[in-house]
């Protein structure tokens, strides 16, 4: 399972890619491999997307496969449901996760329920891509992390990559999946593995091992976590940007932590979580999203239910605050090194 490094690949030669390039490559490969794949969304066509994730794809595959849409998320998801019923495999982009709410009824009541309510006659094999998360001075409408909303919906899968390598393999797996997948891309790490020390110079992907991306097709199975770093002192459960922040903070503190990148929130790799927490006896959950009813609450409950007698300290949750994402005080909101460091200290002091 997890310890195999659940990566299908790949004898293929690798190159250093950023996350946007890796996503673009995954889309390119799937457009090439599967004539049913269509990509659409606001500004994704001729222009190639505000983050450039679809750059060059319309030119390569034509307007029937890659096109712009009206600014109407209800319509974007709604037509994707209809296209899926026809037999296409739509990959709509929502320009920012913050904009996805007008499409929620189509996602929650429709896409997520088609297979169930039609007893398998109709499915919604769509992958909804959306950049999410803060740290880019996006204020409250370009910074949110709404993943917990989607994990609460029976029938949806929620996937969040943390490296270019994973972004490509997970996106290909998501597109091939016959269930609707919400694919949240941590936009703070589009261009480099942000470590949470915002005052330090940014580092590019090229220096990170996760930027080694094999050429060609490969997929990373959904529902499989990745052990970022093995360790004995405590278990960190995180995903997306917070993987890199956790890595940096724990390295700075010299803590021998085991860091697990969940990669898929639903279905969750519960075996990887259990195995690690049972080994370390301590668990730190980190996410950037607001705290109350965040996915960290679900993780804490699962760990408590399944690993209680292995726990040597209360489970710690480090999260964003229960406020809208502020513009000027962005770094006060962000669960950065200090907040994580305090939680680590409490865990290490306990037991």
């Amino acid at each position, binding site marked *: 399972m997890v310890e195999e490094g659940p990566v299908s690949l790949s004898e293929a030669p690798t190159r250093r890619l950023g996350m946007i390039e890796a996503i673009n490559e995954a889309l390119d490969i799937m457009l090439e491999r599967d004539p049913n794949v*269509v990509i659409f969304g606001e500004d994704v066509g001729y222009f190639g997307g505000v983050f450039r994730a679809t750059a060059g794809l319309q030119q390569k595959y034509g307007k*029937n*496969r890659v096109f712009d*849409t*009206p600014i*109407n998320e*209800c*319509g974007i998801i*709604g*037509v*994707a*449901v*209809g*296209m899926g*019923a*026809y*037999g*296409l495999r*739509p990959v709509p982009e929502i320009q920012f996760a913050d904009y996805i709410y*007008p499409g929620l*009824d*189509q996602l929650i*009541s*429709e896409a997520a329920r*088609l*297979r*169930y*309510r*039609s*007893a*398998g*006659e*109709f*499915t919604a094999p769509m992958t909804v891509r959306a950049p999410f998360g803060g740290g880019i001075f996006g204020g409250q409408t370009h910074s949110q992390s709404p993943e917990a909303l989607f994990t609460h919906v*029976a*029938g949806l*899968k929620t996937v969040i990559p943390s490296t270019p390598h994973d972004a490509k393999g997970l996106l290909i797996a998501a597109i091939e*999946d*016959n*269930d609707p997948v919400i694919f949240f891309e941590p936009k703070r790490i589009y261009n480099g593995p942000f470590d949470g020390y915002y005052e330090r110079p940014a580092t590019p992907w090229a220096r990170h091992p996760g930027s080694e991306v094999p050429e060609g097709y490969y997929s990373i199975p959904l*529902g499989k976590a990745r052990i970022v770093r093995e360790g004995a002192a405590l278990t960190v459960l995180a995903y997306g940007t917070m993987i890199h922040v956790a890595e940096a903070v724990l390295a700075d503190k010299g803590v021998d932590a085991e860091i697990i990148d969940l990669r898929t929130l*639903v*279905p*969750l790799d*519960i075996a990887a979580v259990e195995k690690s927490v049972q080994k370390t006896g301590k668990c730190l959950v980190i996410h950037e999203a607001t705290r109350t009813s965040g996915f960290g609450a679900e993780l804490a409950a699962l760990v408590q239910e399944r690993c209680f007698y292995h726990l040597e300290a209360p489970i710690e949750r480090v999260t964003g605050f229960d406020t809208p994402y502020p513009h000027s005080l962005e770094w006060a909101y962000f669960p950065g090194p200090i907040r994580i460091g305090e939680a680590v200290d409490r865990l290490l002091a306990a037991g």
Partner: protein
Amino acid sequence: MAGGRGKSGNKRGNLPPLELHVPEPKYRPGDTVDYSDLAIPPAGAQPRPDETCAPAETHPLCLDLIRVLDDDHRAVGPWDPRLDPETLRRMLRVMALTRAFDERMFRMQRQGKTSFYMKCTGEEATSVAAAFALADDDMVFPSYRQQGILIARGYPLVEMANQIYSNRADRLKGRQMPVMYSSRDFACFTISGNLATQYPQAVGWAMASAIRGDSRIAAGWIGEGSSAEGDFHAAMTFAAVFNAPVVLNVINNQWAISSFSGFAGSERTTFAARAIGYGVAGLRVDGNDALAVYAAVQWAADRARANAGPTLIEHFTYRAEAHSTSDDPSAYRSAQEREEWPLGDPVTRLGRHLIGLGEWSLEQQETMDREVAEEVRAATRQAEKNGILGQGLHHPFHTMFEDVYEELPWHLEEQAEQAIRERRLKWPGWEE
């Protein structure tokens, strides 16, 4: 505060205080109904533009009412689809069968055999005649009141009854409320209880068909009440922008549960007139005139198939009965509305048209009514052998957890074990 001052300090003159307009229907329970002010143009008087005309050419029709059957039940004017008598008789029979099915299933609900039912009485033409005008493999995205489409396409009544009873033979495994049918084989999308969601989906299906260079088109149905949903705007915008090969029907049956059409905007303009703002073709049709419905949908389907774009069709009709078995219209509208409805009954009108042609008789009508009632009775009895709601003959227990995802994830497998353990504790001898 009335008569206040603006920021400049200037008084706003003698303007009256602002007033909120909350629409009110003309008639409430006990009121005498008078429809004489309802604009009903003569049959046959409406021009029929070419199917590939510019959208604007149809826009006068959005404020008109396309009618074919005149007061003497003759088919007149350019919209007469000139159907042969055999087709007319088949259409009449399907409408009668739909009505008989509704009456039977309504009674079965009252007898406690299922939880819920919805009739389409008085609106049969808007689904049956529309289905006749479409090809059988055109994809339909109905609301919950278009059972006539499935019946017109020959979907087995026993399958419909199985679904309504949520029994062991229900192809939807007892997961959906009654009447939320689904049939891929009959090109009928799974019906949703969330209103108007099917509208952008129909447009998406039509876009997919166009992407693929297919020849099939899509058609969607919503009520006038749910045309107020954002999904309507999403669908119209996408349909217009992408020139989608889709027919978008609004069934204006005057009532959305207890809210009259004024709460969806009918005091201001017609529902068909919304096409004007989007720049797509629009038609407004007498929904109780099966020939007019057929002609309008056929026109729109031909237009879509010719890459000439989408059409919005308002079917002007009347919901003759309650919203559903859970509703009591006597609490909010006048019973006289149905009796006085000036556009009559679609089944009666089509029957009289055929009689006028010398192709039908009252005796044939009586025979047909007996036959369709017997057909429905036989189908529902057969379905009841597979069980009725709440009597244990449902689908195997584990199916509750299946089809949430293509594969059963660990958390659902654990929850299924819990459910089955509860079952065994409650009924120790239970076996699937």
